[in-house]
């Protein structure tokens, strides 16, 4: 995976407000951890429809953090899960790991 997360969207949205930037990053970090845990729980239980819902939510954060190819991977993974096809799991995990690492550096 060649893409790396960035804060371009969040900074544009913050329009110079450091307070807003910090507030949003804190919410994203908290929600991402919750959504990721739920994702693994459902995936490991082979509850693919519920997993697709988790991917759907995480997808927004993937887009916000500047992933373009990664966003498409999430879209395809979500659709695959709805059809009982989890084959994009490994690719999706790389995106999650990248985001997790990035959020820790902020």
């Amino acid at each position, binding site marked *: 995976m060649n893409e790396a997360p960035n804060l371009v*969207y969040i900074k*544009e*949205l*913050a*329009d110079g407000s450091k307070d*807003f930037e910090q*507030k*949003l990053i804190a*919410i*994203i970090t908290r*929600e991402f951890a919750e959504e990721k845990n739920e994702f693994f729980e459902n995936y490991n239980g082979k509850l693919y*429809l519920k997993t697709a*819902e988790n991917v*759907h*939510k995480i*997808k*927004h*954060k993937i*887009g*916000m953090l500047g992933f373009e190819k990664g966003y498409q991977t999430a879209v395809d993974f979500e659709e695959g899960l709805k059809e009982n096809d989890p084959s994009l799991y490994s690719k999706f995990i790389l995106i999650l790991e990248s985001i997790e690492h990035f959020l820790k550096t902020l």
Partner: protein
Amino acid sequence: MNCIIIDDEETARVIIQQLCSQVDKLNVVQDFPNAIQAIKFLNKEEVDLIFLDIHMPDFTGFDFIDTLKNPPKIILTTSDKDFALEAFEYDCIIDYLVKPITLPRFIKAIQKAESTPAVSPSAASVEQATATSSAEENELYINIDRRLIKINIPTINLIEAKGDYVLIKTEKQNYTVHSTLKKVEEKLPDDLFLKVHRSYIINIKKIIDIEDNSVLIAKDVIPVSRSNRPELMKRLNML
């Protein structure tokens, strides 16, 4: 314009609030993590515009719109592009924003909202829905948005209690009605339906499989209370 935001994701709510703060004419009255809370609010207050997430657990954005008697202008916010066609079926939906939402695209949606005439003279209010039935004819009528909608009882998969509302899931469509599980239960034939949990009534004919303390109906896994399990097992035609 007074507006509210409905989205189960806090990140999304905060982003839309921030976008609203960058447009002078918008005043965010309140935001809600689910549609039920928003419905309660709209029973008492009027708004001009709603930012509405489509994809929410249990009660979707479209379910929400279906409960509104006089819906105000609605801008859908979603991570799905696939719902655009369905959105065009609603006069109150004036735009469709795909997340992550940028400021220029947001402003364009607001301009569209300003130039679009109000959908109705008053803002949103919610129809108190009631159910009547004709058990002999296998029909159940539900009152949504001043329309009596007929449901063919055998096509009902399950009914789920959701606070002051019930969600009726049929083979083709879901309906949210202001009622109680008890009231709905009274309208359904005993031979077809069984309450398996304090929040669920199921159509026995729709069971796909049973595992421990749950049943699978269409794509829904429904919990079965320990106290209701014997009755359920009794009703099954088992080898």
